[in-house]
């Protein structure tokens, strides 16, 4: 049904960002406006989620130009879940960055750009038009370029070059795929494409177009051969920025991949095989990369790469339960990865370093914080009953039904290595006696007043509680993700919601 409400999460961020530009260089005002804006958008996202959960599909035609000619916005349960997660993590990172981002960076426009980034993310989740999706991706990457290099320190701009180059390359691939798709069908509306794809005689070209989309989204979500930009850039910006990048930016690539490969293309056995092999290699290279790193944030960056493999493997298996597992993993991963980088920022504030050889003694000095951090770390590993455990049941189970043994092996090795590196990190950072810590004069954290500390710790607590909720009330997320998987594999209601009730029938009778 048509409902203009669904555009509000986009408008909310846009309004906040524009408002923030009027308060350029007024740091405190910006902090307050930004937090209020994020809070409001989170409220709107919750509203949107409830609406779509009841109605199933909401659509809006921009400028009232009917689909497939105008630009369509569609909210189904999947996209509204993603918007909800963006709302939660956006709010958490926003509160964290009021203290975690330095005054200079805020003066150079951190908050407006941050809201533009979230605007782009929300837009990408709601886009019902493939070219519109491209435009939202560009909004996301241009904002992320600025955030990545804001401050202009040497490692930041050097990592920035790799990030910018590979993302631009991905955009060109995406655009090339759109060009071929338009040449094949003469349409850009995803629901309309879904109907027209089956009528194309040249199946080989369709397959290649699909794989071009896969390369474009694959670079953005850091899958196997083209992931190296991620570990060499994600540890350079401040932790709050790395948190929103690690939590959401790679996942929007996976979201787009799921959309394109359920609505427009249906993977044939060859494509599935490509996905499965690349997923396995992503899992292994990410895991082994994480093993070698002694810098905490670099290790976490490799773990992002590693865990993208789980998501891609789920898409590659392409059964209802595997997709449900992927969606569940996506929900878990967004919350936990964001929190992981926030935690690493807190550790940096306390100790002033990210090197695990130098870190130590956290447990002795901050026992309660350590307990909080342990929730985050062990959710990531997936120790039952924490949140990482449940989606893996789906994914492991489906490797049996589809016979993807090498994927199962890769998943088990990746899980084991994740457990190993997290346990080793825990031992090094929290239990080991710190080396040279007694000489350190400044501990930024203990010098802060309780308000500032609260601003840093509350978001971590908030996200940790969310991941505990996912862990202990896994049944609810199960129901949600199975419903989403069901919607994804049966796109007819989606098409009917966009194009009108008789669109599917007419195309079948033709």
């Amino acid at each position, binding site marked *: 049904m048509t409902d203009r409400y669904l555009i509000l999460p986009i408008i909310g961020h846009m309004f906040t960002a524009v408002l923030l530009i009027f308060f350029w260089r007024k740091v405190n005002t910006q902090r307050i406006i930004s937090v209020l804006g994020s809070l409001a958008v989170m409220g709107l996202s919750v509203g949107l989620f409830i609406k779509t959960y009841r109605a199933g599909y909401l659509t809006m035609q921009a400028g009232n130009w009917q689909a497939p000619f105008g630009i369509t916005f569609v909210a189904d349960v999947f996209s509204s879940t993603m918007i909800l997660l963006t709302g939660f993590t956006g709010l958490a990172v926003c509160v964290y960055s009021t203290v975690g981002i330095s005054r200079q960076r805020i003066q150079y426009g951190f908050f407006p750009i941050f809201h533009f980034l979230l605007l782009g993310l929300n837009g990408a989740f709601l886009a019902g038009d493939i070219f519109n999706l491209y435009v939202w991706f560009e909004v996301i990457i*241009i904002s992320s370029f600025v955030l990545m290099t804001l401050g202009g320190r040497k490692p930041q*701009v050097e990592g920035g070059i790799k990030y910018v180059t590979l993302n631009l390359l991905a955009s060109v691939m995406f655009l090339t795929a759109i060009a071929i798709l338009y040449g094949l069908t003469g349409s850009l509306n995803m629901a309309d494409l879904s109907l027209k794809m089956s009528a194309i005689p040249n199946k080989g070209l369709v397959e290649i177009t699909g794989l071009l989309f896969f390369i474009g989204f694959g670079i953005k979500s850091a899958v196997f051969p083209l992931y190296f930009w991620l570990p060499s850039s994600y540890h350079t910006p401040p932790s709050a920025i790395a948190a929103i990048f690690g939590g959401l930016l790679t996942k929007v690539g996976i979201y787009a991949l799921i959309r394109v490969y359920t609505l427009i293309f249906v993977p044939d056995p060859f494509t599935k095989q490509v996905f499965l092999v690349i997923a396995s290699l992503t899992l292994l290279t990410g895991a082994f990369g994480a093993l070698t790193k002694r810098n905490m944030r670099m290790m976490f960056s490799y773990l992002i790469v590693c865990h993208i493999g789980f998501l891609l493997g789920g898409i590659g298996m392409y059964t209802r339960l595997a997709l449900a597992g992927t969606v569940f993993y996506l929900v878990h991963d967004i919350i936990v990865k964001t929190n992981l980088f926030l935690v690493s920022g807190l550790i940096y504030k306390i100790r002033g370093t990210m090197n695990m050889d130098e870190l130590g003694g956290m447990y002795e000095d901050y026992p309660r914080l350590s307990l909080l951090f342990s929730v985050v770390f062990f959710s990531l590993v997936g120790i039952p009953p924490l949140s990482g455990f449940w989606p893996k049941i789906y994914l492991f189970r489906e490797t049996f039904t589809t016979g993807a043994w090498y994927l199962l092996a890769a998943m088990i090795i990746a899980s084991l290595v994740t457990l190993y590196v997290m346990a080793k990190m825990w031992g090094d950072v929290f239990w080991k006696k710190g080396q040279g810590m007694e000489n350190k004069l400044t501990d930024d954290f203990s010098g802060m007043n309780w308000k500032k500390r609260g601003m840093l710790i509350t978001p971590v607590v908030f996200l940790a509680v969310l991941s505990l909720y996912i862990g202990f009330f896994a049944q609810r997320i199960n129901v949600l993700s199975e419903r989403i998987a069901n919607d994804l594999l049966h796109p007819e209601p989606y098409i009917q919601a966009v194009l009108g009730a008789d669109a599917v029938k007419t195309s079948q009778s033709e």
Partner: protein
Amino acid sequence: MELLLLILIGILYATGIFMMLRRSMVKLLIGLILLGNGANMLIFLLGGITRGKPPIIGETDKVLTGVYADPVPQSLILTAIVISFGLQAFAIVLLKRVHALIQTDDLNDLNTPDTSI
């Protein structure tokens, strides 16, 4: 015409990728620009080329009739050009900044983030 465009697009993509694989930062940038232009030309070509038939409704007609040029690819290209213009401007500033910081044009020297702890 189509064949000419096809060869041109091939050359743009090939030189773009080739330049991106060089070690110089300026050549990397040139590669990105060429690649972007190649993609735009591809949209133009695949949208179907129709000569001398603009999609304008005549004074006496109510709707477009006959064969006419598809306006959608051109609006797509326009959007893509504007976007890539912004991104390229950002990339140029970034490269200039990097050059000012490390005094070299060689991409192989950009290893601070990988080696620093």
